């Protein structure tokens, strides 16, 4: 007796105003398992706003967002437990090490072994800088630490706001690889990007452009 677990994030006719500005005008999107939807568009067209609406931080004036067929507002805590959101800035405390940051950041959400934490850090190339305070790290290293946290969370839905910021070519390949692994495991990803993500399965990659008006 199964419950449908087709991970699917859908937005129907989403409207959102910021003051007098009609930022999201009837946006429709659908991302299924193993798919990654890239949001493109100029600055100010509402990519970040759409991401924040999709994860439930922003409240749309019209339309609804559904996850696995259910409105996300019905049980926000359960919905949040299934998603990871990475904003513009990596959510790291400057005075803690990368390892400690992940311990607290992800530890509040789920229990995990120290080995899993080590694996996540190694995956992003963090063996050398994982135990230094984050304020001593470069922007690229901070971004990698955030990505390690992302993989450590083990959630089906990834909402990423410009995940390749501050990363060199190697880092951008890393992001592509991580998203690949995520999609292959059946996960869903929604990402606001300026450049195309280097994901290996092009059929899994879709694009949606947001414009003014």
């Amino acid at each position, binding site marked *: 007796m199964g419950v449908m677990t087709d991970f699917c994030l859908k937005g129907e006719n989403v409207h959102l*105003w*910021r*003051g*007098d500005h009609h930022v999201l005008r009837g946006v429709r999107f659908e991302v299924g398992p193993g798919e990654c939807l890239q949001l493109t568009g100029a600055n100010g067209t509402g990519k970040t706003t759409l991401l924040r609406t999709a994860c439930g931080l922003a*409240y749309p004036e019209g339309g609804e967002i559904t996850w696995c067929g259910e409105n996300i507002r019905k049980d926000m805590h359960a919905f949040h437990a299934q998603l990871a959101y990475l904003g513009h800035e990596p959510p790291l405390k400057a005075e803690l090490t990368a390892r400690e940051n992940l311990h607290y950041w992800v530890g509040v959400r789920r229990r995990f072994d120290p080995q899993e934490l080590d694996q996540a850090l190694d995956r992003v190339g963090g063996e050398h800088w994982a135990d230094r305070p984050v304020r001593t790290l470069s922007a690229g290293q901070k971004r990698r630490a955030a990505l390690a946290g992302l993989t450590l969370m083990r959630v089906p839905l990834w909402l990423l706001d410009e995940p390749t910021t501050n990363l060199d070519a190697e880092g951008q390949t890393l992001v592509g690889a991580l998203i690949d692994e995520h999609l292959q495991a059946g996960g869903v990803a929604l990402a606001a990007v300026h450049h195309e993500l280097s994901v290996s399965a092009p059929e899994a990659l879709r694009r949606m452009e947001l414009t003014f008006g």
Partner: protein
Amino acid sequence: MAWTWFHRLGSPPHIYRVAGRLTPWLAWPAAALIVAGLIGGLILAPPDYQQGDGYRILYVHAPSAWMSLMVYTTMAVAAAIGLIWRMKVAHAVAAASAPIGASFTFAALVTGSLWGAPMWGTYWQWDPRLTSELILLFLYLGYMGLRSAFDDVQRADRVSAVLAVVGVVNVPIIHYSVIWWNSLHQAPSVMYLGRPTMPASMLAPLVMMLVGFTLFFGAVLLVRLRGEVLSRERTATWIREALRP
């Protein structure tokens, strides 16, 4: 079915029309009651056996103090409705009420000070009621200050709504703690007339003033509410129709 009128109230153009039509129904009775109350209180009512004619400022002070509390409660209830049901009009009501309530509070403080001055010899005493009114004034100023700190009207509405609800829970706590504080020190506390019960000739004008002030608040609120609605909906299309002479 019963909720439809509630939801229609939430529609800005509807509220704009209704408020406009309702205002004279509140304004004229308010004016009549206040004039009658002032005549009754300032001229017709007998002088108090203890305070003589000096007590007559009660007819302005007591309604002002009463309104200052009533308006805060109205503000908090409207804010809560706006917060829970996400009704823009409810937030507009809260925003429109605040300066009116602050004015009533200020009036209560000034009339209270003037009332006490001949008896105390000074223009201020830390009387529990005056002190409570002063703190209430700070609560109003804080609410208005918080609103003005946000550029985004929606966020200003919702954040200040939380403050209003927190404030209304605190008002009784503050009031009773001030009474407790005052009782420790036996500071002079005037403003209560000599008799435990007032004769009808004194009470009737007071009641008229109270009701008159309430209707006055209603009328001013409706006028300010229309202004709020216009300012918030300035880009909407229904405005041009509504403003056609």
